[in-house]
């Protein structure tokens, strides 16, 4: 029974997390009001900006690499993924992202139904008069990037070049892959993106491993573990002995499958995201994904909350009434939400920080080449970058385990606090 629950939980996480990816980030579907204003501005900015673009922008590169994408890169190859896009008033468009004719850096050379692919993610052209269907854009790099001032904040504006005319696009529906919510956009992206594919792959992989192990336990009942079984058993027992039993007391068996599902889901995605040249998907570093995980923890904790738990939140015993009404109860209610919020941010922030640091170290090569030029700069950059990157990746390997463990142990402690019986 337990093993099926684990498998179901994986699928549950995947389905919900993939549903949340677009929804969370494209909820603000405002049409552009700033369009006219920005058009004037970027003409002025144009000349200054080109000087900057010559250099290597580490931050922009890092953000582009950690974000969710509509293509899956394996080494130099692009694997197209299905795009499922919905725009209000226009309806659903479903097509493969190979229709964009993807070039280097995830730049699409075609526009499909008014959608274009820029740096691996789909954007929509604002102008409703832009021709529908498959349209060939101008040149090898049919995009023009400008920084514009919108309400005093500097934003990026990507324009598409077609028939020697600039067409503005809005922010991608999953801004920075939904790391921090969405930009202003006018369509919904329900595509099977790189993150969704990674989650599905990992779920299938884990389901395969666990079903295999479960079968081995049946066949080899009472005998010593063998093969993959002897690799997984200590991890399983570790979570059971160090996390479930101390925090959950005698009810640990009920929550063990949930904790296991959490632990292995996070761990496998952490590790999968670190394999170089294999997509490098930043799934657990995506706030939308960790948001869903935290939401599930929140629901499980509060649904299982016993009388004592709610009593301690709303009417803490042994404290003067005035203190309870004005301080303790508001603080406890805030705490109820802050706990899953910190879970979400901790996991996301750790993985994002790891990925960004690695990209920054790799970026040293390009920075040195830009500074000193040619082979010398590249060589020096390479000599510095490789040891630092390897060091960081070793640390990240550790972080992958620690963060999965911390997420699980904190979940166990929250559930443990909720299901505790009164003992005064």
């Amino acid at each position, binding site marked *: 029974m337990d093993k099926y629950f684990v498998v179901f939980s994986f699928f549950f996480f995947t389905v919900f997390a993939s549903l949340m990816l677009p929804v969370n980030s494209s909820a603000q579907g405002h049409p552009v009001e700033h369009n006219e204003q920005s058009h004037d501005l970027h003409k002025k900015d144009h000349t200054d900006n080109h000087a900057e673009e010559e250099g290597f922008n580490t*931050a922009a590169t890092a953000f582009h690499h950690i974000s969710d994408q509509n293509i899956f890169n394996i080494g130099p190859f692009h694997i197209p993924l299905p795009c499922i896009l919905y725009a209000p008033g226009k309806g659903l468009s479903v097509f493969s992202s190979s229709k964009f004719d993807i070039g280097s850096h995830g730049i699409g050379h075609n526009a499909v139904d008014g959608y274009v692919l820029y740096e691996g993610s789909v954007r929509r052209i604002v102008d409703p008069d832009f021709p529908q269907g498959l349209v060939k854009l101008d040149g090898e790099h049919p995009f023009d990037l400008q920084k514009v001032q919108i309400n005093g904040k500097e934003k990026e504006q990507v324009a598409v070049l077609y028939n020697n005319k600039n067409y503005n696009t809005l922010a991608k529906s999953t801004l920075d892959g939904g790391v*921090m919510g969405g930009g202003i956009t006018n369509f919904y992206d329900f595509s099977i993106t790189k993150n969704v594919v990674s989650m599905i792959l990992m779920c299938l992989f884990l389901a395969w491993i666990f079903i295999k192990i479960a079968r081995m336990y049946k066949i080899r009942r009472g005998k010593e573990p063998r093969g993959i079984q002897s690799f997984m058993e200590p991890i399983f027992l570790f979570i059971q002995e*160090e996390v479930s039993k101390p925090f959950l007391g005698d009810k640990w068996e009920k929550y063990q499958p949930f904790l296991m599902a959490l632990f292995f889901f996070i761990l496998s995605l952490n590790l999968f995201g670190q394999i170089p040249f294999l997509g490098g998907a930043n799934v657990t570093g995506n706030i939308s994904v960790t948001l869903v995980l935290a939401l599930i923890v929140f629901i499980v904790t509060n649904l299982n909350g016993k009388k004592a738990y709610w009593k301690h939140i709303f009417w803490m015993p042994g404290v003067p009434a005035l203190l309870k009404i004005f301080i303790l109860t508001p603080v406890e209610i805030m705490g109820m939400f802050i706990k899953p919020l*910190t879970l979400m*941010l*901790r996991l*996301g*922030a*750790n993985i*994002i*920080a790891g990925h960004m640091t690695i990209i920054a170290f790799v970026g040293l090569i390009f920075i040195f080449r830009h500074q000193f030029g040619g082979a010398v700069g590249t060589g020096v950059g390479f000599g510095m970058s490789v040891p630092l990157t390897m060091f960081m990746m070793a640390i990240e390997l550790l972080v992958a385990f*620690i*963060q999965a*463990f*911390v997420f699980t*142990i*904190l979940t166990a402690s929250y559930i443990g606090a909720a299901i505790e019986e009164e003992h005064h």
Partner: protein
Amino acid sequence: MTGSLAALGAGLAVIGAGIGIGLIGGRAMEGIARQPEAAGDIRSNMILMAALVEGAALIAIILSFFV
């Protein structure tokens, strides 16, 4: 001088986390030296506490990217 204050903020956050994790690690070592048989328990609690401290610092660093 150019650049943004956000970088300074990220640095401050790292100082705070450094002090915090240093204290945790130091006290854990003291604890283990005093009671070597409790090393396992102390170690897992140490990792948990370090992760909690680190989480706060990472939130500050991530926010510094966005301001």
